[in-house]
């Protein structure tokens, strides 16, 4: 195999005032033609900086190459002039960025953006370029490509846009495609589609791909070779098998280990304290009106549709679902942050919908929330002790000294230094800030905690530590959790039972292990299959759900999932299935649950 790109001792600095801070040090990396190389690392590890250096875009973003060579087809592009780079970028090396929504200029049609790029590198007429673009869109499986050409980026979904961005990168048959977290902003079923597309294109076009990701599992799915970055250096590289089966460097080991931990341990069998039901929802629904034009019928989003569930004392109920599934709204309804349109919420058997002010305050004391965005959840002008002590000031009449004592106590409980109480939120890392959020949530000794994507924004290693803390607190304080996340592995790790949501409805709810081993709903199965795994034995061309997630404004009739379900029949199109108990605590809303072996086989 010919080597396409050789990075030799590359160092990159970021200019900070007059200083140059090293961001990447002595990186060596080879990419053979037709090879997929994954650059894996946490945030701030220097992987994006490396890729920007290869494209020489780092020059525009306040950085510069301070040493080393980048040999592309045996030519050192590290010292080329930007003028010459413009002939290489887009033609020989192309890139795809993380967020497809912002990667295209919103004020030009998709067709115009194709024509611009194609005509920059090839001398063809406008109409030739236009036709060529339609061919490219077909290649990435975009339906009705000719009409897409006349649309604006805003009119397409994220998944579609990422296909468009990939097609745009392919415009001049580049030899190297740099993909920087191309699936991170996408839902898991859409991510699987895009990964499959990249593999397919590699096979067809024979191009090399430098794939950057923070997600080990995604790397395991797609990589031939993996390089692990940590603090600006590549600490280890090798074939996917070498890295995942026999990690050498301590950092790689810890990454692989924390991913394995998620998979092996599950809360299902751990001791749950008792069967007392803390919180219960009965047929709750929530509809949001959309802004509409005058003289036109109002449109609504059915965010939550007739959902029933219960949470026991000391239990974690996980909720998974893709965008538009309504899990966030459901969470807010459970803790009365939003008022349900219909249905009841029972706290310890008592209806709390529309209670008096006093009842509400009592409820607030016992149900707490931890949000995803660790930064915005803390008032930037307050010290940590003021933040954590706020619930005490609202609900109790403790003196300043007593509050301080309690604050120090909970800080210790969440493994933070009690002395840090006098500092401000911005002085902490993301993981520490989330601990502060947790401390504030538990200071009143509540019974129930809503964890709304509470660990989703954190790096893998930090994530597993926060999960550990949450488990510990649950044991010690007998807390009940509703845990929402889009990462399936995390949910599996912490939850006793898991509910799967699709377009406002719960389609399946079951004990965690059973759900993962014997999914009953076709959507659950599809989700699990789409979920990337570092288990290389399971690496295969998997079954991937086709199509987009329908808009919650206009969900399909009958069973919402019928448009993407491989097993859908006429009945599914007409009639919404009701939630039915299978065995034990397993319930599913499907006309044809996958309990029989032959039906499962049908899916293959």
């Amino acid at each position, binding site marked *: 195999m010919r080597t396409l790109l050789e990075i030799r001792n590359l160092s990159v600095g970021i200019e900070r005032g007059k200083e140059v801070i090293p961001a990447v040090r002595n990186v060596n990396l080879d990419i053979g033609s037709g090879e997929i190389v994954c650059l894996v690392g946490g945030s701030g590890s220097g992987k994006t900086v490396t890729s920007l250096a290869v494209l020489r*875009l780092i020059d525009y973003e306040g950085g510069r190459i301070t040493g080393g060579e980048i040999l592309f087809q045996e030519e050192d592009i590290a010292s080329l002039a930007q003028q010459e780079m*413009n002939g290489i970028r887009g033609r020989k090396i192309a*890139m795809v960025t993380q*967020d497809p929504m912002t990667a295209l*200029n919103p004020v*030009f049609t998709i067709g115009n953006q194709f024509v*611009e*790029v194609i005509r920059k590198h090839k001398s063809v007429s406008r109409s030739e370029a236009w036709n060529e673009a339609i061919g490219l869109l077909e290649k990435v499986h975009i339906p009705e490509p000719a009409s897409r050409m006349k649309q604006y980026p805003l009119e397409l979904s994220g998944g579609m846009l990422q296909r468009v*961005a990939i097609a745009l990168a392919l415009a001049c048959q580049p030899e190297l495609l740099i993909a920087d977290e191309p699936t991170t902003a996408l839902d898991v079923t859409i991510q699987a589609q895009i990964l499959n597309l990249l593999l397919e294109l590699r096979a067809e076009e024979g191009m090399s791909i430098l794939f950057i990701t923070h997600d080990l599992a995604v790397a395991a799915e797609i990589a031939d070779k993996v390089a692990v970055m940590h603090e600006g250096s590549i600490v280890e590289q090798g074939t996917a098998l070498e890295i995942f089966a026999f990690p050498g460097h301590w950092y790689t080991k810890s990454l692989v280990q924390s991913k394995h931990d998620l998979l092996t341990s599950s809360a299902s069998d751990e001791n749950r304290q008792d069967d007392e039901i803390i919180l219960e929802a009965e047929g709750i629904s929530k509809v949001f009106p959309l802004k509409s034009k005058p003289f036109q019928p109002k449109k609504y989003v059915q965010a939550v549709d007739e959902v029933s569930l219960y949470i026991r004392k000391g239990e974690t109920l996980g909720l998974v679902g893709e965008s538009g599934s309504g899990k966030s709204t459901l969470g807010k309804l459970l803790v009365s942050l939003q008022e349900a349109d219909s249905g009841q919420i029972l706290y310890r058997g008592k209806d709390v919908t529309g209670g008096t002010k006093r009842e509400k305050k009592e409820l607030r004391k016992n149900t707490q929330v931890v949000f995803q965005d660790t930064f915005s959840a803390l008032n930037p002008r307050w010290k940590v002790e003021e933040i954590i002590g706020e619930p005490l000031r609202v609900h109790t009449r403790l003196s300043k000294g007593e509050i301080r004592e309690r604050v120090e106590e909970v800080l210790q409980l969440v493994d933070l230094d009690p002395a840090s109480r006098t500092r401000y939120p911005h002085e902490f890392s993301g993981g520490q800030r989330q601990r502060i959020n947790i401390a504030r949530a538990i200071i009143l000794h509540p019974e129930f905690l809503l964890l709304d994507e509470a660990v989703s924004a954190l790096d893998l290693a930090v994530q597993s530590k926060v999960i550990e803390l949450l488990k510990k607190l649950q044991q010690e304080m007998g807390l009940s959790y509703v845990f929402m996340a889009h990462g399936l592995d995390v949910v599996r790790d912490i939850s006793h039972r898991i509910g799967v949501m699709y377009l406002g409805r719960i389609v399946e709810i079951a004990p965690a292990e059973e759900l993962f081993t014997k999914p009953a709903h076709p959507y659950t199965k599809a989700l699990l299959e789409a979920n990337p795994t570092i288990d290389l034995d399971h690496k295969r061309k998997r079954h991937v759900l086709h199509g987009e997630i329908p808009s919650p404004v206009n969900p399909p009739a009958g069973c919402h999932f019928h448009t993407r379900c491989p097993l859908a029949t006429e009945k599914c199109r007409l009639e919404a299935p009701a939630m039915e108990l299978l065995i034990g605590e397993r319930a599913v809303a499907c006309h044809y649950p996958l309990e029989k072996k032959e039906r499962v086989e049908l899916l293959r």
Partner: protein
Amino acid sequence: MLYVLSRFGMAAGVILGSVTLVFIIVNILPGDVATLLAGDDVPTETVNQLREELGLDRPLISQYLDYIAGLFQGDLGTSYANSEPVLDRLLDNLGPTLALTISSMIVAIVLGLILGILSAVYQNKLLDGIIRVLSLIGVSTPNFWIGILLIWIFSVQLHLLPSIGNGSFEQLILPSIGLGITGAGVITRLIRNSILEASNEPFIRSLRGKGIGQRAILFKHILRHALIPAVTMVGMIFGEMLAGSVVTETVFSRQGLGRLIVDAIDQKDIPIIQGAILFTAAFYVVINMLVDISYRYIDPRIRLNEK
């Protein structure tokens, strides 16, 4: 089309609101027009007689309704000073003011656009520094003083351009510059900021990654993006110019709505002031309506978000 219609409806509503607001200020604020007109040392009977003559003794509501009804027939009342219909006087003076406003707009936009682009392209360089100081001076300096300086330099010292009067093109140059400079300062800052903001958009990185040159990125992508917020400002700046013309016309002794207002102030001719203000308000509303409508064609996002 539906949008354009509803936008028309809104504009009409806002103009009605402005009429009402002006009416309220004139009639409900503690000042008494009749006393103001008659002067301080006049016996009460005379004042009352005057009040009756002007129809100011009737209930406010019927005065208001009459005024509105009059508006629909193109009747803005009669001037206290010379009993001419207000509308005629306004129309007589509209032309020169529009000429001044439009030529000032051109000065402001051309100057602001060029300086704003230069400033952003040479960000943090010397030229940027100079332009930023100039635009700061532009927005901070009263336009009547700029006018006086211009007269002093170009008319008194250099004898290049006429300082006062209207009619010829030369007579328009100094006033337009005087009035346009403030707007130019505002536009320069705006363009600079939105160019810098637009060049931080992630899609600019993608474009560079596709080998598109700096020049094409600046002129095609960044500028298109940056001009969108600037278009909104055009409506606002037009209003400011219209208002600024009051002062500028006084400085340069030009005929126009502004002068009409200033003279009306001296004569306490409230109907004229009221009418002239309604004129500017209506202009402002219409211009902003046009901006809003055109906006939908410049920025596809606005159109699409409504779907």
